[in-house]
């Protein structure tokens, strides 16, 4: 009777053969093999198989002399070539010759200057001078634009003030004409006093300021908003008199205020052939008659004139 069963030994026989067992285990197994013939045969079979395989391997390997294959040389050569053609080494190569780098930088800077220069020239050429022929032609080609206001005629809806203007009238008599353009956006532009009387500067300035502030509904021609030239005639007359005698005149004046009719011939330029009467709100706020002084500011309708 063996100390270890054959099944137990055979289970560990491969590990024993491969030298993977501890010393004590190896001694145990070896002891068993010395006594057990069948297990010993099994072990011999393993050994002879190993021996045969090693022999064959040796023969196969020896049939090809490794040294003559020059694996080392091939590998090193390929490594060297790969290193040579790698991106990093290429970049390093470029910078090893600084002549090329300076030439490259110079060319880049020159190109940049050319691009910036041509861009600025093109930019300058695109800006139209206001007195150039092209500008004049383009302005003339677009009647009704803010630069080329149209003449107001009967086919148009005249501009109307949307917001009220409130001007405190002076007690002095004032009569003057304003010429202006009502733009497509309904704003007053380029107001000029045509016949300014030097004494009424303050009042006229207030009037001008107010005119710039007023929002108009722009003139409409065939459905489109157009800029139009306008002339306003403004007259302010203060009538003073006794209470009983001047009532008639006051009534007359107030009646006149409500009638949007011209009270004076318009300063129409020579080329004007037709005129229209745009309805604008009076620019004058009426003041209630005072019992003591009984002065009554006369409100006169502004008269639009086309020229």
């Amino acid at each position, binding site marked *: 009777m063996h100390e270890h069963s054959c099944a137990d030994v055979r289970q560990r026989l491969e590990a024993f053969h491969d030298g993977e067992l501890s010393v004590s285990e190896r001694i145990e197994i070896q002891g068993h093999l010395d006594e057990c013939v069948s297990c010993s045969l099994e072990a011999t079979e393993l050994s002879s198989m190993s021996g*045969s*395989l*090693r022999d064959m391997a040796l023969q196969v390997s020896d049939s090809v002399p490794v040294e003559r*294959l020059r694996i080392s040389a091939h590998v090193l050569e390929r490594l060297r070539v790969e290193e040579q053609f790698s991106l990093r080494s290429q970049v390093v190569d470029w910078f090893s010759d600084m002549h090329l780098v300076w030439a490259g930088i110079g060319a880049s800077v020159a190109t940049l200057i050319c691009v910036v220069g041509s861009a600025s020239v093109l930019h300058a050429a695109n800006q139209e001078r206001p007195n150039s022929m092209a500008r004049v032609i383009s302005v003339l080609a677009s009647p009704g634009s803010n630069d080329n206001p149209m003449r107001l005629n009967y086919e148009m809806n005249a501009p109307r003030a949307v917001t009220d203007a409130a001007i405190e009238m002076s007690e002095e008599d004032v009569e003057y004409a304003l010429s202006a353009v009502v733009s497509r956006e309904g704003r007053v532009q380029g107001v000029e006093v045509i016949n300014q009387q030097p004494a009424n500067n303050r009042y006229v300035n207030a009037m001008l300021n107010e005119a710039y502030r007023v929002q108009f509904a722009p003139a409409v021609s065939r459905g489109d908003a157009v800029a139009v030239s306008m002339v306003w005639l403004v007259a302010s007359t203060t009538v003073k008199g006794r209470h009983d005698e001047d009532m008639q005149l006051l009534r007359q004046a107030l009646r006149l205020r409500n009638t949007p009719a011209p009270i004076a011939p318009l300063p129409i330029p020579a080329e004007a052939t037709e005129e229209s009467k745009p309805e604008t709100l009076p620019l004058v706020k009426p003041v209630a008659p005072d019992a003591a002084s009984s002065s009554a500011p006369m409100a006169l309708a502004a008269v639009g004139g086309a020229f």
Partner: protein
Amino acid sequence: MKDAGALGWVEVGHREAALIERCAAGEPTACAELVSGHERMVFQLALHLLGDRDEALDLSQEVFFSVFRTIHKFRGQSALKTWIYRICINQARNRQRWWRRRHKADQVSLEQHVTAHGDLRQPGDDTAPDRAYARKQMAERLWSALEHLPFDQRTVVVLREIDGLSYDEIAFSLGVAIGTVKSRLTRARQTLREELREVRP
């Protein structure tokens, strides 16, 4: 399961560690030293696994390129030799699949190989001609059986019997557990033994 990978720099000798560092730095003499120190091992393993000289030569070069490309990742988790084995086996496995698909019919058997190269030595010290012949026959039969084993089993046999690697090293080279190594080895030996029994008179 015993962990085959946890070894550390201790396993790698100081000389080998210095060589690896020089290779990682791209020093050509170090690379040459590494290749010449391992080329025989790599080529023979490739030859035994693939069974074709040109394929083995090509594979060997690829293995060393792969080694140099990844050597900076090597942290002494095994001996350098085992690490190179691992790379070699992985590449051989990939090539084996491709080779099997494309050129299975063209594979050179050992008989053809020996006829072509005619360089086989008489194995052993047995002088009796008939016994020697029988032994040679047996060895060739065994080798042929080895070539027809599945790749994983063949690899285990080659690493154990021919290259003499321990179970630990085989497990690391194949990236499998030691139990898997044992079972593959047992199955492969069983198959080979059956082949031998058929030849044996």
